[in-house]
């Protein structure tokens, strides 16, 4: 239990509390626009950036972030090229990212790269710099959502109506992509690149079951995200498990319980 009071664990907990707010919020907008796979794609591409960062000796999260932003623009471009098969662009870029990452990782074999901690997350690796970066990203995301929530709602609900009302839809699309890229690249150290998209999408999936308004769904995703991150980190810390895996399995458990509960409520009524 003393792990809980240790400094590295507390850093992980603070980092987790921050991404537990931002990741589910960005995920909500993605899921409602049927773009759930974007989270996965961006995180896979950002691993390649992390690997390159290690190779050239630059802060890996920053390089991962640049890769993720580039990927989010590439997805938009490819989505236009394959209009009716938009998910194809996602498959192409996702595998491209993993391919590049695997090449870079093998090139960097002589360096002491902690690949696992980026793939599956680790609570031991979060430094104070990481925490400042996560704090900065959280502030940006929260300010953006707080000031633009009604526009984001309209664009998510009805993009055409948003255009007709003169909203700069392209700008908002780019904003959503860039904010998502930011959140993902700072989350991968805690949750792991392979699992970060679960933190984006599963709270949103839960909110689709229980929320009865947009306001409620915003609250629901944050509550569920925080709950899973805090409990997941505690369990992972105490039993020395991978934090990303623990958090994701907790999220899936919550989702299954909600589904069961809804079925029970339906057959009961």
């Amino acid at each position, binding site marked *: 239990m003393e792990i809980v009071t240790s400094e590295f664990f507390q850093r992980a907990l603070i980092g987790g509390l921050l991404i537990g707010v931002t990741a589910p919020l960005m995920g909500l907008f993605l899921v*409602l626009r*049927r773009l759930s796979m974007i989270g996965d794609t961006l995180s896979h591409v950002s691993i390649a950036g992390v690997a390159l960062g290690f190779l050239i000796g630059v802060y890996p999260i920053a390089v991962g972030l640049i890769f993720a932003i580039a990927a989010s623009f590439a997805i938009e471009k490819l989505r236009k090229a394959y209009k009716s098969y938009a998910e194809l662009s996602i498959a192409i870029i996702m595998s491209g990212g993993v391919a590049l990452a695997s090449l870079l990782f093998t090139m960097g074999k002589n360096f002491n790269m902690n690949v696992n901690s980026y793939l599956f997350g680790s609570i031991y690796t979060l430094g104070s710099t990481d925490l400042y970066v996560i704090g900065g990203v959280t502030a940006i995301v929260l300010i953006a959502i707080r*000031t*633009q929530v*009604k*526009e984001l*709602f*309209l664009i998510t*609900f*009805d993009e*055409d*109506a*948003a*255009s*007709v*009302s*003169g*909203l*700069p839809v392209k700008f908002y699309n780019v904003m959503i992509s860039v904010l998502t890229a930011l959140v993902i690249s700072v989350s991968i150290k805690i949750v792991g690149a392979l699992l970060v998209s679960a933190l984006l999408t599963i709270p949103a999936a839960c*909110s*689709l079951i229980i*929320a*009865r*308004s*947009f*306001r*409620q*769904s915003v609250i629901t995703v944050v509550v569920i995200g925080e709950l899973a991150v805090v409990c997941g980190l505690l369990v992972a810390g105490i039993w020395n498990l991978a934090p990303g895996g623990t958090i994701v399995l907790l999220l899936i458990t919550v989702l299954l319980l909600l589904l069961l509960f809804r079925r029970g409520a339906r057959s009961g009524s």
Partner: protein
Amino acid sequence: MQMNSAAAAASCHQEVISVENVSFSYQQQKVISDLSFAVKERDFIGLIGTNGAGKTTLLRMIVGLLKPTSGMVRLFGEDVASFRQWEKIGYVPQKNSFNPLFPATVREVVMSGLYNRNKIFKKMSKTDNKKCEDALQAMGIEDLQAKMIGRLSGGQQQRVFLARALINNPSMLILDEPTVGIDTETQESFFHMIKHMHQHHNMTFLMVSHDLEMIRSYLGEQPAAENGELKFHIKHSHETQDCVENDLAHSLKGLREEMESRKEVVLIGDRN
């Protein structure tokens, strides 16, 4: 829902939509070629054509969602690309354009009619809330405002989208296939409602539909322009009344009550 009737009278029959030599092609295929027509204030225009005739394409060009390959669209005399008076236009998209699972209440959806470029960074005020109440009342859906939009019937959803379009008190309504997936009776009451708005509230209407019968019953046979399969039925405003009722919410409520009472008469008649 105050109508500025003095201003409306002053600029009577101004051109609201001008389509000037507009062509549009998807890749190599020409969908619309060299089309020109004008919609004047207080017109009621039905846009009729078979699937693939270019109805929706034309509509999307008119509201600025698509750029014409050549030619020009003007709204209230202004190039649509630089048009900034979004409050003047109420747009009702195709009903099936949203995800039925979307977690949004009726009130949230109606309120979103106010979110335009001029409101970015601004909070909704008391006046905005009042506008929302009025729009809900005008469509008779104030009791549904906390319900999730996906849980409503097709006809109710349509009223929600109409309320959203009406919230800015627009001078023109653009409706894309408003009667799709709605039973005949609901369609009829819907038509009564927009007819009432057209005749008593100085509103201009542009409606896209593939339902020829429905539009014909209101507009009569008056094809005014033809472009391949695309036909325009234009009805000018000579049937509208000059005395303009001021309170849309109030007058629509009266209309609904009248329709309800008529329904009862029919029911009693059936029993006899």
